[in-house]
C-alpha cells in the first residue's frame, strides 16, 4: 500500500532522513521506533508531503506521491496525527473535529463519526465548546486522534500518540488503535517511544537510528532482540 524507497529529506541544511526504504501492506499495523531525533517525525512529515522529499520515491497504492502537495495526499486517504498534537488553539473542540472532516462532504456520515469519537472520548463531548488551545495535554492528544478519525483515513500515521497520557488513557488509546484497525480496516503506521506497547499491538516494526533503518522484522522478533530490549524497552 505504502512504499518508501531511499527517501531523503530534512530541514534547510540538516538531513534528517538519510535514504530509508520501507513497506506497509493494507490492513497492517506497522511501528517505527527509534531514539529522539532519529528522524521518525520527519519521515511521517515527508510521507504527508509537508517536508519536501529530497530524493527517492514514495509510492501509495502504486502511485508516486513524493512530489504531490500535502492536500492531494490527504485526499488519497493518508492522514496524520502529528507529534505535539497541533490543535487549532482558537477553534473550539467541535470546530477542530470539523476541520478533520474538511475534505468530506457526506453530512450524515460525518455526524455519525462525530458521535462515534464523542463516545470514544466522552471528555471531548463535555468540552465541545472550549477552545482547543486551553485543553490539557492529554485532552489535546485525544482531540488530535479524534480529528484524524474524522477524516476516515485509509492509512493513519500516528506520531507518539501516547506521549504525556495517563496510564489508563494509554491503554485506551492502544485499544482504540487496534479497534479502528480491525473494524474499519484502517492501516496504521505508528511511531512510538513507548516501544513495548507499540510492539505488542504491531504486526511488524522498523527501527530507525539517526536517519537510517537499522533493523526490521516481525514484532515478536524485535521484542526478542537484546539490543532493542536494552535501548528501547528499558528491560
Amino acid at each position, binding site marked *: 500500500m505504502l512504499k518508501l524507497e531511499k527517501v531523503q529529506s530534512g530541514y534547510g541544511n540538516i538531513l534528517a532522513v538519510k535514504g530509508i526504504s520501507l513497506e506497509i501492506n493494507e490492513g497492517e499495523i506497522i511501528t517505527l521506533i527509534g531514539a529522539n531525533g532519529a528522524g521518525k517525525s520527519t519521515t511521517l512529515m515527508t510521507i504527508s508531503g509537508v517536508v519536501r522529499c529530497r530524493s527517492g520515491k514514495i509510492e501509495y497504492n502504486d502511485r508516486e506521491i513524493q512530489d504531490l502537495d500535502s*492536500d492531494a495526499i*490527504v485526499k488519497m486517504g493518508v492522514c*496524520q496525527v*502529528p507529534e505535539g498534537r497541533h490543535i487549532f*488553539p*482558537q477553534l473550539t473542540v467541535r470546530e477542530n473535529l470539523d476541520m478533520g472532516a474538511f*475534505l468530506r462532504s457526506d453530512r450524515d456520515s460525518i455526524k455519525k463519526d462525530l458521535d462515534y469519537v464523542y463516545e470514544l472520548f466522552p471528555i471531548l463531548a463535555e468540552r465541545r465548546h472550549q477552545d482547543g488551545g486551553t485543553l490539557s495535554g492529554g485532552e489535546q492528544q485525544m482531540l488530535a486522534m479524534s480529528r484524524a478519525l474524522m477524516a476516515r483515513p485509509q492509512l493513519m500515521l500516528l506520531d507518539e500518540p501516547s506521549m504525556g497520557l495517563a496510564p489508563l488513557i494509554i491503554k485506551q488509546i492502544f485499544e482504540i488503535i487496534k479497534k479502528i484497525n480491525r473494524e474499519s480496516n484502517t492501516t496504521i503506521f505508528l511511531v512510538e517511544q513507548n516501544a513495548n506497547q507499540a510492539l505488542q499491538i504491531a504486526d511488524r516494526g522498523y527501527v530507525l537510528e539517526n536517519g537510517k533503518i537499522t533493523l526490521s522484522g516481525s514484532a515478536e522478533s524485535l521484542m526478542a532482540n537484546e539490543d532493542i530490549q536494552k535501548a528501547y524497552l528499558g528491560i
Partner: protein
Amino acid sequence: MDYFIELLFSGLTRGAIYALIALGYTMVYGIIGLINFAHGEIYMIGAFTAFIVATVLSILGFPALAIIVLAGLAAVVWSASYGYTIEKVAYKPLRHAPRLSPLISAIGMSIFLQNYVLLAQTSDFLPFPRLIPDFHFMEPVAHIVGTTDLVILVTTTIVMILLTLLIKYTRIGKAMRATAQDRTMAMLVGINVNRIISVTFIIGSSLAAIGGLLIASHIGQINFYIGFIAGIKAFTAAVLGGIGSIPGAVLGSVVLGLTESFATGYVSSDYEDVFAFSLLVLILIFRPSGLLGKVDTQKV
C-alpha cells in the same frame, strides 16, 4: 442637537470609509500575521482603474449605470490581480523568514507602487467623476447625509455581514481560520494553504477596490498618494477593533471616525488625529487586543 446629528453622520461616513479599507488589512493580517502596508496602494490602484475605465466608457458614451458597474468590476478585477501578484512576488518567498522581513518587503512594495502610478499616470490630482447621482428622496436630509455617504454606509454594512458569515460558516472561511492558526496542521487536514492565502489576498484587495471606487467618488479626486494616508488610518482602525476580527475592523473604524468627527466638531480639527491616536493608545491599554480582538488564551 442638529449639529450633533450632523457630526454623528459625518463620523459614521468616515468610519464606513475606513472600514472598507480596514477589512482587507485585517483579513490579510489575520491569515499571515503581516501588516500589509501595500494594501493602501491597492486601494489607490483600484481608484485609478475605476477612474480610467469610467472616463473611457463615458467618452464612448455608455449610460451612467453601465459605467458604475463596469468601472467597479474593472477596479475589483485589477486590484485583486495586483493583490494576488504582490503576495506571490513579495510575501510568499518570505513565508519562513524572520517576522519583520515581510514587513519591510511590504513597505518597499508600497513605495514602489506609489511611484509606479506617479510615473505611469501623473503626480497631479485628477478629478474623479461623480459616478453616483444624487437621489431625489435624499434631498431633505442632504445637509446631513449625502447620497454617496448613504451608499458607502450601506455597502460597508453589507460587506461586513457577508464577510463575517463567510469566515464563520463557509468551508473556505474555516480553512482560512485554520490556516491562520496552524499552517502545518492545516496542510495535514488537506487544506491547500497557498491557495487559501491567495484567496484571502484576492478578497481583501477586491474590498479595497470597492473602497477605492466609492471613496474616490465621495471626495471627487485621486492621486498616487491617497493610499498611504488612508492606509495608515485604516490599519489603526483595524488594530483598534482587534486585528484579525472582521466585526472588529468595522467597529474600530466607526469608533475612530466618530472620535475624529466629534473632536473636530467640539474641540478642534487641528487635533483630530491626536485624539484618534490617543484613543487608540487608551483603548489598547485597557483592552490589549483591541475592542473585539480575541484575548489569546495561551496554555502554559
